[in-house]
């Protein structure tokens, strides 16, 4: 399946694939005649999809939540606006786990259920599952997602596409419906590394509307993709290959990492002993921040509901109890608990301190290596419904992506092989803070040296 470069190619592929994969919550009206003619950029008319939790003036911005079902944003997210200014066209809003909370896009608050284009009985990953499925099936050239604890990288890995989470602060968060504000970043999904680099270069950079966006110089990511990686030291952290990883995934990822030696890199084993602690740190912090961020949804300003409640407090409880889905309510409860008087030091406070230690551990590792390579997920795409009854199992699916989120590092997933069941496996490449150029150099060198990049899913019968 060809990667679409025009709106018509995109719409054709959507017509063919969408009934099988359900990547979209909705398609936006695209006026092909009305495309801005004054934009002469390379991206003129490129069809893209945008995750439902990123503000767009076309279509709805509802984070796949009943509480925001009919919300239309009067503005575009900064990251998207920069791409629009370069000429891209939004063809639709993609499905996700409600407010980004999940690893399978099964926690969607609004229908339909996204499926993996490689095997429609399996999940596309999450939370940016719709965005990954849309790129994998060739429905769009590129998709925007958000990554709080792996929500771009893990679905990219499951769907066999490239997924990039930049350094925290690299891309403006203005217009992203917040989950965990100290962790959230907008990310890109494409089929090729160089395309992701190109998109990120446009999106990145300081924004007056996000005080946490960094003034750090934006690198030349496209040129970085052409750079030789001979002599670069690649660290392979042994904790990511310990218990819990599927043996087949382990072999595929190890083989991929050692293949970097063929292009001149030096692979060495390293140790990041705090890796097992990252899940607890991540979830305590993310849920605490979520409980605070989601307090703003009171069912009054974006959409008013008719209820027979007598007073304002009862109205809030009713609207929120009905409007939020199971996992979002669990997050709010867990986060409120972790922040509540008597427990805050023990849970949120402790997690924030261990977060410092995890960040330091990575900073020290980057003293001796130029990049780190490891798996994105302990397994390939799992069957629909296989984890949805067990929240802890779903959280543990994020074990290899949350450490970089906690540390604020740039990390990306690159397709690195297929299992015996023909499911894609992703290789995760991590660089130190604001060193996206190095991450792209390694990813691109890897991509150029192998053949996975030419594999695309076949249409289900």
């Amino acid at each position: 399946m060809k990667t679409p470069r025009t709106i018509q190619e995109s719409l054709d592929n959507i017509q063919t694939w969408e009934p099988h994969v359900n990547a979209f919550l909705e398609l936006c009206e695209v006026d092909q005649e009305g495309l801005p003619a004054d934009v002469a950029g390379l991206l003129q008319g490129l069809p893209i999809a945008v995750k439902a939790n990123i503000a767009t003036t076309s279509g709805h911005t509802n984070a796949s939540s009943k509480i925001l079902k009919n919300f239309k944003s009067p503005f575009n997210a900064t990251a998207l606006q920069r791409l629009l200014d370069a000429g891209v066209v939004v063809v639709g809003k993609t499905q996700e786990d409600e407010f980004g909370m999940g690893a399978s896009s099964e926690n969607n608050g609004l229908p339909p259920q996204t499926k993996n284009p490689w095997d429609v009985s399996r999940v596309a990953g999450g939370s940016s599952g719709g965005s990954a499925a849309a790129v994998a099936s060739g429905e769009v050239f590129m998709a925007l997602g958000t990554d709080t604890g792996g929500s771009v990288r893990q679905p990219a890995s499951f769907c066999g596409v490239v997924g990039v989470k930049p350094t925290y602060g690299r891309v403006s968060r203005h217009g992203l419906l917040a989950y965990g504000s100290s962790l959230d970043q907008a990310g890109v999904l494409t089929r090729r590394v160089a395309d992701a680099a190109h998109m990120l270069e446009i999106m990145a950079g300081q924004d007056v509307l996000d005080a946490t966006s960094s003034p750090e110089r934006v690198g030349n990511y496209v040129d970085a993709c052409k750079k030789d990686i001979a002599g670069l030291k690649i660290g392979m952290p042994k904790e990511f290959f310990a218990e819990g990883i599927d043996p087949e995934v382990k072999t595929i990822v190890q083989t991929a990492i050692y293949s970097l030696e063929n292009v001149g890199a030096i692979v060495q084993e390293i140790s990041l002993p705090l890796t097992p602690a990252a899940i607890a740190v991540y979830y305590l912090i993310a849920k605490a921040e979520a409980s605070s961020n989601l307090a703003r949804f009171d069912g009054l300003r974006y959409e008013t509901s008719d209820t027979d409640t007598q007073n304002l407090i009862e109205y809030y409880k009713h609207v929120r109890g009905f409007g939020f889905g199971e996992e979002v309510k669990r997050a709010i409860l867990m986060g409120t608990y972790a922040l509540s008087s008597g427990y805050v030091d023990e849970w949120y406070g402790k997690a924030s301190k261990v977060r410092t230690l995890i960040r330091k551990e990575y900073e020290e590792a980057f003293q001796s290596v130029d990049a780190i390579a490891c798996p994105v997920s302990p397994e390939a795409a799992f069957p629909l419904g296989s984890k949805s009854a067990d929240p802890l199992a779903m959280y543990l699916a994020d074990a290899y992506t949350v450490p970089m989120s906690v540390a604020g590092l740039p990390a990306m997933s690159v397709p690195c092989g297929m299992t015996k069941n023909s499911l894609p496996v992703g290789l995760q490449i991590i660089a130190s803070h604001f060193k996206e150029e190095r991450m792209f150099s390694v990813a691109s060198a890897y991509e150029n040296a192998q053949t996975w990049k030419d594999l695309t899913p076949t249409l289900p019968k």
Partner: protein
Amino acid sequence: MISKEEVKKIADLARLHLSDKETTGYSLDISGVLENFETIRSLDTTSVVALEAASGLQNVTREDVVRENILGTPEELLKKTKTKDGYVVVKAVFTEAEVL
């Protein structure tokens, strides 16, 4: 570890209506998750400063200039909202008994 009563109390703080079935379910699975997370308690964090500013930036300021309608006009923003005389209409904050 987290009783049904505690879940009810937290839900009340978080302004969430839960059914009895939900309360029981959350009591069980949040307890299970937190039990798994206990492992971080054994890590030594004496004299470790908590990481709170993830970007590492400090004192981000801007010119004190009013910028109009960055997110849209008030009309656009209140389009889905019940309003009266420019105010958002809400349910009564106090019940009659409390007013008296």
